[in-house]
């Protein structure tokens, strides 16, 4: 049952829910990058926390291999169209593929593998979103200064993304992905299983 081909219905559901995930991450990243540099670097974990609900619903409805890859690739493409730095789309695609490899590890998709795969996915996404600020510091600062972003903000960002902090942020990304998956499963049980939209497993 696990290595079934994806039908058109599965793919359409993936597309629609990915659209929702993309909108959520856009809104959250916009709001949090405006609130200050501390919240800016922690936006991927928050995105992962909220998107956990959507992803868990998607995986519960379509428990097949390939779903996370498709969703990652499409989110990456859209971020590319919106003008994101290339690291972010690449991290989403890599995260999707790694998640897919993990999710059907033993040939069976369970809630445990779902949670683990999503946590890894969110850690990779966090790394891809935040690491460029550290790795490509000079060009990043130059672009920001030219764009007229306040010096305090840039200094803060650099301080927040130094090596030890970067590890902390990625770990937070992993933990938030884990929590998001748990939250998603809770929401599923509370709302969707009761309504008969998702069968409990």
């Amino acid at each position, binding site marked *: 049952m696990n290595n079934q081909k994806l039908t058109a*219905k599965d793919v359409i559901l993936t*597309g*629609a829910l990915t659209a929702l995930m993309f909108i959520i991450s856009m809104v959250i990243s916009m709001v949090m*990058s*405006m609130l200050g540099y501390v919240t800016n670097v922690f936006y991927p974990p928050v995105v992962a926390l909220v998107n956990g609900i959507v992803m868990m619903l998607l995986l519960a409805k379509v428990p097949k291999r390939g779903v996370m890859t498709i*969703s990652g690739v499409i989110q990456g493409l859209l971020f590319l*169209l919106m003008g994101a730095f290339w690291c972010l789309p690449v991290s989403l695609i890599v995260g999707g593929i790694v998640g897919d490899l993990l999710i059907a590890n033993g040939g069976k998709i369970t809630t445990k593998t779902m949670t683990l795969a999503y946590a890894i996915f969110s850690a990779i996404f966090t790394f891809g979103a935040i690491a460029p600020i550290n790795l490509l510091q000079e060009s990043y600062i130059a672009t920001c200064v030219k764009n007229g972003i306040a010096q305090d903000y840039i200094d803060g960002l650099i301080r927040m993304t130094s090596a030890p902090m970067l590890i902390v942020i990625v770990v937070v990304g992993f933990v938030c992905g884990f929590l998001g998956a748990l939250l998603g499963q809770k929401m599923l049980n509370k709302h969707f299983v009761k309504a008969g939209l998702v069968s409990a497993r």
Partner: protein
Amino acid sequence: MSEQSIQQKIEQNLFPGTANLDPRCKLLLLIFLGFFSYMIVGDVTGLLLMVVFGFLVAAGGDGKWAVKMLVAYVVVAYLNTRLKYVTIPGLSVIMSVFGVTILKFIPIIMVGRWVLRTTCMDDLMVSLERAKFPREITIAFVVMFRYIPTLKIEHGMIRNTMKIRGIVDTFWKKLLHPLSTMEYILVPLLMRCLKVTEELAASGTTRGLERENVRYSLRPVRFGWKEVAVAAGGFLVLFTLYVLDHTAVGAVVIWR
């Protein structure tokens, strides 16, 4: 309706001028624009970028929208520089980031909405398939394009329903109560998603979405010399602006 008239209906041009370019070409332009938009920072070059792409959008039949965005760009750019003279602790940092983000997004939003409005989903699908994208990704991508406007409508409907039941929902409440926001808005949205996609899948399957063979189209969908010219031209313009940005032109200040 006879077969002839159906064919005529399909083949007629819905949009004028540049809107008839291949969807791949439009997407490519959007990617170039997104790539360069953050690197072109001068006042003159930024404005030139807006004007050039404004002409592109206007030639594609959305002149009003282009003018609107151009005006918005000028206003935001002007306000942005004004803000540099005022310092309010805390707030001015936020405002500077906010202003720059909006300023960089305006060209992308302008071209993005135009692409979204002037691209038939059938054309997009055929052209992506001809670009050798796997079928799973093509279908999901097209559904996603089609679904983003729907999400906005659904969100409005959910808010209306909340209003009828006397649950007030403002931006600040959304921020202050993230958990209830998730439950009140995300869960109904997901429910609607499930229902709508079921219908969408049924209608798509009956129209042959699952067919394995190669699609053909009555409307011409090909990456011809016109598309190559526009894509190369767009890239050249952006690259020239980027180079200009590093010369004296980039340092000229218009907004003061």
